């Protein structure tokens, strides 16, 4: 390894870091604008054309804000926690390809590496909670770790199913495998010609994509799964004591992780940098078009994530854990099972799609039941009250106090 290589690596990393910062800035703008449109608001519109300079203003504000270290906090742990959250997600980006030739370092077992390093983030959240020595902080830290470790398992299982289909853990191979027209990439996959079709895996494994998106949302704590830093409940959870630059690092990490989830969805299930118009002759043009396709797909997934944020209410911690262990984890195992059987016996490709769709409808039904449960409960209470009121009143006094309207159970957190 020569010294020139070393400087090339550092240069590449700096470029990557800058690009990621720009992406995060664009994401904050996009989220506020898109959410605004969903809620019939304008979103940011004062700073610059269409509010485009809003993220810059936010960044300046965050850096200028006072960085408070509470007197009861554990100083070292408090300082190191944001780093433990951010640095792994930066290290993940080193291995994620944006186009076939555009990756800083392609790791041959990229998927496994990504899984392993994303686990370290959990540790950072627990540290943040513990370091700030605050009730809400520790509750939030514990809840976040419980949530993240529960949803890490479905992510792993789905990723394994994808690796089974592509017979590789290398992100570039997996993405190339989804390009229609490629016969086979490896000797192993040559055997599959009977069964598997080179189409984006979203077609073959809709269930896998759904689980990956749901669990991915939980991994980054996007809205239906943001109980661990719920502002109205535990006032920001692990981040309650953080302000200024330290807080902005958590913020940065959250958006970077969201972008990772979206990018992985695009790479694993939507065919990554492949698209209908893909010139192959000059290499730079191929890379450029590839990156454009990759970004289009990634931003599409991100818009879906924002859309989900604008639509779904927040889950309680018990609902969230029950959903993880009783719905998502078993279904992710079923996903592995059907993929394995399908590939081993070389069934036609639509059979996997069919099985997968059947199982996804199970998830859809359960989500529907969960989301409408409060409304149904209200209706039930309402009907019961009407039944009681229709009966002749024997004890007038008891009735007048009135049952409390809220059907909500007591929140049973940590």
């Amino acid at each position, binding site marked *: 390894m020569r010294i020139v290589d070393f400087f090339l690596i550092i240069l590449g990393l700096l470029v990557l870091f800058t690009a990621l910062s720009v992406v995060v800035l664009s994401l904050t703008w996009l989220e506020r604008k898109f959410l605004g449109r969903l809620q019939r608001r304008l979103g940011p519109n004062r700073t610059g054309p269409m509010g485009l300079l809003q993220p810059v203003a936010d960044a300046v504000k965050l850096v200028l804000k006072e960085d408070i270290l509470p007197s009861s906090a554990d100083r070292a742990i408090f300082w190191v926690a944001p780093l433990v959250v951010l640095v792994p997600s*930066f290290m993940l980006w080193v291995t994620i390809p944006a186009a076939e030739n555009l990756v*800083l370092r392609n790791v041959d077992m990229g998927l496994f590496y990504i899984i392993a390093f994303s686990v370290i983030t959990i540790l950072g959240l627990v540290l943040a909670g513990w370091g700030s020595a605050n009730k809400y902080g520790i509750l939030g830290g514990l809840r976040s770790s419980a949530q993240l470790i529960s949803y890490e398992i479905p992510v*792993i299982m789905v990723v394994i199913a994808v690796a089974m289909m592509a017979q590789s853990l290398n992100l570039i191979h997996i993405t190339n495998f989804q390009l229609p027209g490629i016969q086979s990439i490896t000797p192993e996959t040559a055997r599959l010609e009977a069964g598997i079709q080179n189409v984006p895996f979203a077609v073959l494994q809709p269930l896998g994509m759904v689980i990956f998106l749901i669990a991915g949302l939980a991994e980054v704590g996007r809205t239906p799964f943001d109980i661990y830093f719920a502002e109205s409940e535990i006032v920001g959870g692990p981040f309650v004591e953080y302000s200024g630059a330290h807080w902005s690092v958590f913020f940065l990490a959250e958006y970077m992780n969201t972008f990772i989830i979206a990018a992985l969805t695009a790479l694993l299930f939507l065919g990554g940098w492949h698209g209908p118009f893909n010139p192959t002759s000059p290499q730079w043009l191929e890379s450029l078009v590839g990156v454009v396709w990759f970004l289009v797909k990634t931003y599409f997934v991100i818009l879906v994530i924002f859309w989900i944020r604008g639509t779904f209410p927040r889950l309680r911690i018990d609902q969230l854990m029950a959903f993880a262990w009783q719905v998502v984890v078993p279904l992710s195992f079923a996903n592995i099972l059907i993929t*394995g059987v399908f590939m081993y016996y070389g069934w036609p490709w639509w059979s996997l799609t069919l099985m997968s769709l059947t199982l996804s409808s199970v998830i859809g039904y359960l989500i529907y039941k969960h989301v409408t449960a409060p409304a149904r409960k209200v209706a039930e209470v309402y009907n019961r009250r009407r039944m009681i009121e229709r009966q002749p009143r024997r004890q007038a006094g008891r009735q007048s106090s009135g049952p409390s309207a809220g059907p909500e159970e007591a929140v049973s957190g940590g």
Partner: protein
Amino acid sequence: MPVDFDFRWAAIIVSGIIGFIAIAIMFGASMFISSRRRSEIKLTSYECGIEAAPFRWSQINIRYYIFAILFLIFDVEAVFLFPWAVIFIGNKIAFYAMLIFLAVLGFAILYGWRKGVLQWSK
């Protein structure tokens, strides 16, 4: 040198270091230019307006620990699954061995489900 491992992982290790340094620079810059007016009240931990009380550790529930153990076990399982996933095609032993493996662990999950451990609150 015994093994020239071409340092495929150098970029990854260095990326960790660079991320660390970049964030440290950001913290430093922020400390340098941000406003700074300390007071005793401001430095107390946040308690929604009431007076801060020390946190009691014993209030933390054991179920967090259980989920951590479950996570560890599934992680170990994933370590077995990853090498298997890339080779199982056309390998009869591999396929059935993993079926047995998954069945054994599925039994464990069913057991936990029956005992009601997988719910957060009973």
